[in-house]
C-alpha cells in the first residue's frame, strides 16, 4: 500500500523568495506522483505530475518537482514566489496500475509581502 507524508503543515515565506514543499512517499511498486493546488475557496487542480521519464517535472505557474527514487521524495519548488501562490498544496501518489490515489495531509503556503 502507498502512503504520502508532507512534512510541513504550514510554510510561510516572503514574496520573491524561493520555496520548497516537501513530500515523501512509500510504495512497494512503481509509482505515479502528483502535486495538486487548492487556492482559497476553489477546487483542487493539478499542478504537475510524474509518470515516467525525466525526473525533473515542470508544472504550471513556474513550479517544478524532482522525483528522487532513492530518497522516495517528490519535493515541489519555485525559485521566486508571488502573493498569488498563496494556497494549500497536496502531494499524491498512485501505483503504476493507476488505481487508488492517496493524498498527503497538505501544506499551507502563505506569502508575506
Amino acid at each position, binding site marked *: 500500500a502507498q502512503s504520502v507524508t508532507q512534512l510541513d503543515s504550514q510554510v510561510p515565506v516572503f514574496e520573491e523568495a524561493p520555496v520548497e514543499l516537501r513530500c515523501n512517499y512509500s510504495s512497494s511498486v512503481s509509482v*505515479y506522483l502528483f502535486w495538486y493546488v487548492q487556492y482559497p475557496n476553489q*477546487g*483542487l487542480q*493539478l499542478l504537475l505530475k510524474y509518470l515516467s521519464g525525466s525526473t525533473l517535472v515542470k508544472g504550471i505557474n513556474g513550479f517544478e518537482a524532482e522525483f528522487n527514487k532513492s530518497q522516495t521524495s517528490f519535493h515541489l519548488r519555485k525559485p521566486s514566489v508571488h502573493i498569488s501562490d498563496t494556497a494549500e498544496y497536496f502531494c499524491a501518489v498512485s501505483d503504476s496500475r493507476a*488505481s487508488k490515489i492517496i493524498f498527503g495531509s497538505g501544506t499551507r503556503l502563505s506569502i508575506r509581502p
Partner: protein
Amino acid sequence: GAGVSQSPSNKVTEKGKDVELRCDPISGHTALYWYRQSLGQGLEFLIYFQGNSAPDKSGLPSDRFSAERTGGSVSTLTIQRTQQEDSAVYLCASSLGAAPPLHFGNGTRLTVT
C-alpha cells in the same frame, strides 16, 4: 459536461438522518473517486470506481457509508444515520484511462447538526 458536477453544493442535516451525495463525472471518464476533506485535514480516500465496480472500498469509515455507480457514469455516496463527525466537504473526482490526473468537482459541504 465541461467538468465534474456535484450536488448538492451544501447540505445541512440533522443527526441520525440519511443523506445522498451525487457526482456526475466528465463524460467518458472511466475512473471515479470519492474523498472527504475535513477542516484542517488532508484528503481522506473513501472509495474508487473503475466503471461500475469498486475495486477498493477500503477507505469507507464505517458501514454507514456506501456508494454506487451506474452506467459507468453517475455515482451516489450515501451516509446513513449521520453523525456530527461526518461533517466535512465530500469531493468527487474522475479520470480518463490508466494515467490520471484527477479532475475534481467543487464538492458537497455536509453539516450535521
